[in-house]
């Protein structure tokens, strides 16, 4: 099993005719994803040839959904058009919209998040998307570094997601979700923790956090009350100085708020074991699984 994305998911790609969009559509197809449509305003009626399969392009999300039954959108359009692309997908009623684009203005994210409330699950923006290994991939997470299995992973960071997936590739993952490093994002750690807790295909959860905001602290509070499956965590950015943005727009320590130390302490206070390095985090996950199996 998996969360949010399964082998039955029917994926459309907004911006498929662009360079990034077409490159990653090819990769998603190779990973077994059912990519059923591309959407580019003004280019409806064409199709794009991906070797074994030609994917039709529609002029609007509504049309693509009506014609192909798509229920997931992956957004690859440039930052200045992302806001309207996501609003279009939400208005068309897509259940899941994965926003890969980096550099989306925060006000735009606030607006489409408000519009989507109760209608569309948004993942991102500025995220690698999500993958349910062996089933489907919506985004840019490499499909060939890990195997299907029973760990759930949720992370603000893309590369750290890959690092942990690779370190635990022999154990395998149900779903890995990159929720993105922007200040305002659609799907949070808590949303994923809840879904993994409810997913019968997930036995344990890795949560990767980083400096900035208080999402990890709120996740800790949620874990204490609602999560019974084993959770191990990793937090990046102990050495980050105050007031400097560390790559991700949201990764910034302001005064005493948003520090890695505070997040680690909040998580450990509710019994989550926190690794000092990615490799230690992988070891902690192995021992958690061993204990659970014992």
């Amino acid at each position, binding site marked *: 099993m998996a969360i949010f994305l399964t082998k039955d998911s029917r994926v459309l790609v907004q911006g498929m*005719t*662009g*360079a990034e969009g*077409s490159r990653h559509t090819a990769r998603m197809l190779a990973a077994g994803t059912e990519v059923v449509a591309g959407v580019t305003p003004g280019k409806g009626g064409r199709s794009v040839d991906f070797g074994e399969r030609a994917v039709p392009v529609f002029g609007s999300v509504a049309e693509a959904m009506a014609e192909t039954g798509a229920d997931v959108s992956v957004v690859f359009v440039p*930052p*200045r058009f992302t806001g309207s692309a996501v609003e279009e997908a939400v208005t068309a009623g897509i259940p899941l919209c994965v926003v890969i684009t980096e*550099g*989306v*203005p*925060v*006000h*735009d*994210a*606030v*607006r489409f*998040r*408000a*519009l989507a409330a109760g209608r569309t699950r948004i993942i991102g923006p500025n995220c690698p998307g999500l993958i349910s290994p062996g089933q489907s991939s919506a985004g840019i997470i490499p499909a060939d570094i890990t195997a299907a299995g029973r760990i759930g992973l949720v992370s603000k960071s893309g590369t750290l997601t890959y690092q942990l997936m690779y370190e635990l590739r022999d154990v395998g993952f149900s779903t890995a979700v990159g929720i993105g490093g922007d*200040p*305002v*994002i*659609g799907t949070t750690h808590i949303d994923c923790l809840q879904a993994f807790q409810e997913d019968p295909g997930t036995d344990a959860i890795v949560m990767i956090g980083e400096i*900035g*905001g*208080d*999402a990890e602290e*709120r996740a800790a509070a949620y874990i204490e009350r609602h999560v019974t499956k084993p959770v191990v965590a990793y937090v990046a950015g102990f050495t980050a100085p105050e*007031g400097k943005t560390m790559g991700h*727009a*949201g990764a910034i320590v302001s*005064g005493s708020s948003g520090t890695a130390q505070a997040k680690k302490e909040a998580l450990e206070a509710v019994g989550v074991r926190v690794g000092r390095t990615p490799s230690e985090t992988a070891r902690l996950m192995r021992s958690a699984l061993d204990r659970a199996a014992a």
Partner: protein
Amino acid sequence: MDLYEHQAKELFGRHGIPIPPGRVAATPEEAKAVAAELGVPVVIKAQVKTGGRGKAGGIKAAAGPASAEEEAAGVLGMDIKGHLVRTVLVEAATVPFEEYYAAFLVDRAQGGFLAMVSAQGGMEIEELAETDPDAIVRLPIDPVTGVDADTARLLAAKAGLPDAAAPVLERLWQVMIEEDALLVEVNPLICTTDQRIVALDGKVTLDDAAAFRHSWAYTEASAGLEEQARAKGLNYVKLDGRVGVIGNGAGLVMSTLDVVAGAGAAPANFLDIGGGASAQVMADGLEIILADPDVRSVLVNVFGGITTCDAVANGIVTALELLGERGLARPIVVRLDGNNAEVGRRILSDARHPVVRQVSTMDGAAETAARLAAGV
């Protein structure tokens, strides 16, 4: 991007929010001059992007120009938490009758906007939040409807601010929305003895990702194609015509513009990619040129010297690959001449890029590009 206090206040001024008269100064002499101009007692305020400058001795009062000069000399060059004080704001001293706190910000936890207003301003808001949390009114702001006059009056009333503060709150929200700010904070927002509401301090954080909507705010240097090109290290000058021109060497490119003009078309730009035309530089250059909506055709004019034509041709092919469909919009005329011209031309023909046409002489290539730009 955090703004300096004086930049934040300049924004406030533009949006009609009252601020004390004043000006930024970089030397004690300049501070003296500003104080003399103002003709009233002044405050010298260190311009640093960090809090706590008052405690650190970065804010000084001065009764007149002479003491303003003296105090500015003390504040300029100070190190406040690792920030060097390069400028001071010299402002008419303004005495508060009451001090308030007002802020709009992005609320990460809720993924929305939040207003925070309090009748107890002038202290650190974190401190106030700890000692007297109920003194702060927090109101989520609907991103679609925003803060209208009614909401502003409600905010002022709930927090215990005078009615006169409501229009100022409304304008602060305008700053928030129109400037794509992540934070607009005034602490203290004051009421003077004569009942005027004045922003005595200001902190604004702009969203760098939204710079494309506000290029003027990111210094003039970030506006326009010329600045984009400069940021990529390209030597580009925007002109008025329709034939995009790219070549290697300033003289050759200038000459190319002239030959294009001689062929009856106006060049759209000057762009010299220099001696070692790497694929990346060529791609950057083509990208800038194709980003110009005036361009109807592109002329690539390269003389193979130390960088031979085969290397240049490979560069062009890779550049067109890097550009993807951005390279498909308009015809590209390529002229390769000089060392290994034959080999270079064959590489380009073999690549069969749909928009590329080769012409072997500079004059002929210019004519072709001119004709294509004219739509003939």
